[in-house]
């Protein structure tokens, strides 16, 4: 207890934390003073030694990690909890959503999902002219950034064209905010090139949006899905109780024996360990904290337990594949050499197979098992590559990069992201980026995320920060966005600023270098 008091005192006295950051840190400290959900000694050891990781979700889960309220239903029926009738015009609809966002929890303390904002608001927008629409949406977007200062807060657009969607893209280019995170769903048969092009121009300005393969998502999750937080895809009206991740690099290093026995015994044991921790956390949330019995979102039919599952994360695939290749005497590197890349695919495939036959409680949203997720790291990861990405700085040329990672994507219904880094050449030929997006999706990629070398924005794991905000944080110690603090750690620890830029070849300079 003296230690607890000292730490509480330190938090209270930390001048660089804003009031809200202090409240949140104090709540985290209080939660940490409780005993974590009970697991076996082997599982506790795996957690303590970094084989599995609960991403500091806290000892006593009292809200699901990610939840996706059915905003469409809320707008249609109004809310008793909020004391608001169903909106009748755009003004009321925006006020309704902003009020509702303030009452939606998640692991971050802010809502991680803001809904399909274009679809939600388009019906109301019919009654206002363009100027009014832009003004209202600007107020909404600024308010989201100022009142939900966290880049894990995520809005969705598409796949259809709309006035609201176009206005949001235009405002993104004007406002240059890191919040909210943004995803455009792309359906090759429904999403017009001009909308994808508009979104690509927005990437050039501010690094947003992500592009997701809408038909692939619908095949895995049904038509009512949303992309939340970094790039996590889940069912609307549901969500994910928890996200626990298995460090594949560590898993491979702990293995003794040949490659085949890794797949036969070690990987299954480690998957079971991760699943055990997930089961304990889910049970604690549902049965001890009884979140689903106390939430207004459940009471009003905006969330339901049967649309929930949980996320089984994996990361460090690159190091795992390299290590296993070496066990058989090989020297290949994941993403660069065919043998290691193929072994990486096999690890993912085997993990998917194992997760799909490991029952977990309260996961009816995915037929009783977890969703596999390629987890893109946290600020404290050192020497372990995010998710199933190719190590930063080693990425091969663009086409080889996409072909190396694409086969993994089908296994990750709850999200996978490979970040493609471009230089300025892209800005002079945005149609080329549209071509790459369409090609990536045609070859089975679920998510395409870009980082442009020359703008102020940088993708950390799946969320955005501004380089200028990081500089300010370094200089003053104070950040308005909580995510900036995490990002500073990531930049320091994992060289995210060193991603290999796709320098696309100019016929005027060097045709001998293969693109």
């Amino acid at each position, binding site marked *: 207890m003296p230690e607890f008091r000292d730490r509480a005192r330190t938090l209270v006295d930390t001048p660089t934390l804003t009031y809200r950051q202090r409240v949140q840190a104090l709540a985290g400290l209080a939660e940490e003073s409780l005993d974590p959900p009970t697991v076996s000694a082997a599982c506790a050891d795996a957690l303590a030694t970094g084989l599995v990781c609960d991403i500091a979700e806290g000892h006593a889960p009292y809200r699901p990690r990610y939840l996706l309220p059915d905003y469409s239903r809320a707008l249609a029926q109004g809310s008793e909890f909020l004391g608001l009738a169903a909106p009748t015009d755009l003004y009321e609809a925006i006020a309704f959503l902003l009020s509702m966002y303030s009452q939606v929890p998640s692991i971050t303390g802010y809502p991680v999902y803001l809904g399909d904002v274009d679809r939600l608001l388009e019906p109301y927008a019919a009654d206002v002219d363009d100027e009014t629409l832009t003004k209202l949406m600007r107020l909404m977007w600024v308010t989201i950034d100022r009142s939900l200062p966290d880049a894990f807060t995520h809005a969705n657009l598409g796949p259809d064209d709309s006035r609201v969607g176009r206005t949001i893209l235009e405002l993104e280019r004007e406002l240059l905010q890191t919040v909210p995170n943004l995803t455009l769903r792309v359906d090759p048969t429904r999403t017009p090139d001009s909308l994808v092009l508009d979104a690509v121009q927005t990437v050039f300005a501010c690094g947003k949006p992500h592009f997701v393969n809408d038909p692939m998502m619908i095949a895995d999750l049904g038509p009512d899905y949303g992309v939340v937080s970094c790039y996590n895809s889940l069912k609307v009206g549901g969500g994910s109780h928890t996200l626990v991740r298995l460090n594949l690099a560590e898993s491979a290093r702990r293995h003794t024996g040949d490659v085949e026995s890794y797949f036969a015994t070690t990987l299954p044991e480690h998957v079971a360990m991760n699943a055990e921790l997930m089961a304990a956390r889910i049970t604690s949330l549902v049965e001890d904290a009884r979140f689903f019995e106390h939430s207004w979102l459940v009471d009003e039919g905006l969330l339901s337990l049967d649309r929930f599952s949980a996320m089984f994360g994996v990361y460090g695939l690159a190091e795992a594949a390299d290590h296993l290749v070496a066990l058989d005497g090989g020297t290949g590197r994941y993403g660069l050499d065919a043998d290691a890349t193929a072994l990486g695919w096999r690890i993912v495939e085997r993990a998917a197979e194992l997760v799909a036959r490991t029952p977990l409680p309260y996961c009816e949203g995915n037929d009783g098992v977890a969703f596999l997720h390629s987890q893109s790291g946290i600020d404290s990861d050192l020497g372990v590559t995010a998710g199933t990405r190719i190590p930063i700085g080693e990425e091969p*040329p*663009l*086409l080889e990069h*996409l072909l190396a990672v694409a086969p993994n994507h089908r296994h990750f219904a709850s999200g996978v992201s490979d970040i493609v880094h471009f230089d300025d*050449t*892209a800005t*002079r*030929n945005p*149609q*080329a*980026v*549209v*071509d*790459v997006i*369409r*090609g*990536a999706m*045609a*070859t089975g990629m679920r998510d395409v995320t870009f980082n442009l070398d020359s703008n102020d924005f940088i993708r950390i794991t799946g969320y955005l920060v501004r380089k200028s905000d990081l500089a300010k944080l370094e200089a003053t110690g104070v950040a308005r966005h909580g995510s900036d603090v995490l990002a500073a750690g990531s930049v320091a620890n994992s060289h995210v600023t060193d991603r290999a830029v796709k320098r*696309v*070849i*100019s*016929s*005027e*300079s*060097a*045709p*001998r*270098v*293969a*693109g």
Partner: protein
Amino acid sequence: MSRLLASPADLVVSDLAVVDDDGPSGLLADVVRFSWVDGPGNRFAVFLQGCNLDCIACHNPHTMPLKTPLARLVTVADLVEDVRPVVPFLSGVTVSGGEATLQAPFVAAWFAALRSDPGTARLTRFIDSNGCADDATWDLLLPHTEGVMLDLKALDVATHRELTGLGNAQVLDSLDRLVAENRLAEVRLLVVPGHNDSEAVLRATGDYLAKRAPGIPVKVIGFRPHGVRAAARHIPAPTPEERTAYASWVAASVGAELVTVV
């Protein structure tokens, strides 16, 4: 194939290329599977070996000679297969060089094969050319080509000769023909300081293009010493401000919306 204009080396590809039952083979310097600077969108760019000009500012001088161990011969069928895995990512293909039109029979055959194959038919087919090609060559190419990006090294004959070793009558004829047949996708002006960078020259070039090629995009490319032969390395690269000025002089008559500068 047709006799080409007399180049300094007086070489023709037919001296070298193999024509067998599979049709003409191409002599390739290199292939870039993703190119963002050789026409609209993402393109599969093929750089053919051999050029009929001898430009002091050439950035790829290794692609100029026809006889070089660095080049390789490919068949039309093989080059179609090379494109196939990349098709989902492409707007089209572009043949550059060297000088693409020197191997017109091969280019025409490759384009025709791409068009007749359902897997590649949707790709657009572009040519990047210095314009030193006669009517017979264009007769062969244009039925299979959506667009040509044409270099105009200099409007003035003497300057053209000084920069490339040849006059430009055929280039200007090519420009007219491509406009007439609605195949001119872009005109490229490589601006070399001390040679063709004066305000008067660039304004005159803009006037000419506005009249002869109205509505056609113009790309103004500032000389860069990277990759050029020793003789041109002393030429300075224009500053960004100078490049902007070049573009503005050309744009005065062409129209700013049609002019880009790199």
